[in-house]
């Protein structure tokens, strides 16, 4: 069964590469001043001030290299994101991604199932309730990452935007947090793909998905019922 349109598949992998480079180069830029306080001031809310990110989690080699990558790749990230959002809006895929009525109950049931309080996999459509929320949150956090990024790129020319976030220092802090959220969502996504539905990996490449191997059909939790059922 066809699961992902070619545009979704292409934008997914372009996004994976662009986001990786954005995070790596962003962390390298951060390492030039791994703190948030204004000089001569203090900052309330970052306990790791002055501690750089391990170099092998960064990309760009040095500050200028990382900046050049960051300010080039941002266009790939933004244009690719806009293509994706425009497509899922026009083609209707957004219906599989926005929260629907009863989402709170559906999330509760999914969590119960993962915590083995509930035995059978809740009924779902293309995505379960947790996936739906994750894939809904991802573009929103992505947009926030871009907007906070623009605010620290142009704090004078676009001062109203930067002031909206509490000024440059806070905009930089929010940019850092949106990055952390994106990384957390991505790690959770990759973990669940490999431990619950590895059969979805080919579907993001060829587009085809076997419904008889879906987590619902296998009654799969992380690491449990990874193999197809024998019946």
């Amino acid at each position, binding site marked *: 069964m066809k699961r992902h349109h070619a545009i979704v598949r292409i934008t997914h992998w372009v996004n994976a590469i662009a986001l990786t480079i954005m995070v790596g180069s962003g962390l390298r830029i951060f390492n030039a001043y791994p703190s948030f306080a204004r000089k001569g001031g203090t900052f309330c809310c970052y306990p790791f001030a002055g501690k750089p990110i391990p170099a092998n989690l960064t*990309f760009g080699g*040095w500050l200028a290299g990382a900046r*050049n990558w960051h300010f080039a790749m941002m266009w790939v990230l933004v244009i690719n994101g806009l293509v994706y959002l425009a497509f899922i809006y026009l083609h209707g895929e957004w219906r599989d991604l926005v929260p629907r009525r009863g989402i709170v109950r559906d999330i509760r049931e999914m969590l119960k199932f993962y915590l083995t309080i509930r035995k059978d996999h809740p009924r779902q459509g293309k995505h379960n309730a947790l996936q739906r929320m994750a894939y809904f949150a991802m573009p929103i956090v992505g947009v926030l990452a871009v907007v906070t990024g623009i605010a620290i790129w142009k704090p*004078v020319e676009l001062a109203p935007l930067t002031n909206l976030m509490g000024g440059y220092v806070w905009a930089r802090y929010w940019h850092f947090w949106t990055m952390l959220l994106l990384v957390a969502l991505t790690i959770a996504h990759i973990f669940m793909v490999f431990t619950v539905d590895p059969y979805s990996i080919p579907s993001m490449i060829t587009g085809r998905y076997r419904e008889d191997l879906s987590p619902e059909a296998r009654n799969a939790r992380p690491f449990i019922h990874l193999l197809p059922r024998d019946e």
Partner: protein
Amino acid sequence: MSDPFELRDRPRIRELTHLAERAGIDRRRFLAATGGALGAMVLAACDSMGPRSATSLLKFAERKNESIERLLLRHTSMDAPPAGAKPAGSHFPSYFVSDSVPVWDEAARGAWHLEVGGLVSKPVQLSLADLAALPRVGYKLDHFCVEGWTAVATRTGVRLSDIARFVGAQPTAQYVDFQSFDSDYHESWDIESAMHPQTLVVYAQDGHYLNAAWGAPARIYSPTKLGYKNTKYLTRITFMPTRNGGYWSDRGYEWYGGV
């Protein structure tokens, strides 16, 4: 009768095994080596400058970003630090590229003066007293460093646009270069940023004439440019038809460096 199932290619396998063994490679080592190589490939991408072939693409993006930054520049968008932002005071960082703090050697080089020339109708040499006699402006301004930190200070000096009028800068002057006596440090700017009302030839910070750490006797400062574009230890301002790079711009940082 010979055995019909005799394995005639066995010696070859043995030979291969032998080769591998001779090289000191057993299966465990082979797996470790393969895994290590793959791991190294992934790690090689980390903390690296990325593929060389990307350089021209990165340059292309920098040029496109510059045209966008030029479009965004407004002489009406003025920097104003948040009300609660504390001035950095003595915590204001001091950067220079020479081995030690550059100090103008009056005994060897004569009295300091600022040369203003290039595409101007009357080039001048301004002493510190001349500068102080020109219309004085002061702003409490943010300083945005390329490294990501920010600091607040009150900058006092003369608008560069006033000096440009004073010397009669010509319309063909599309760029301005700021030369220093901090080794060969200089940075060139687009004329639009140079003529921003908050672009000042600064001779005082926080109410005192500049000290050596902060660029005495005079420096250029504008909140519309990242710190490294703002030459300290100023000696010469040159109005030019073309740009001529800069100390950090020639070493990989963006030439425009707008804020």
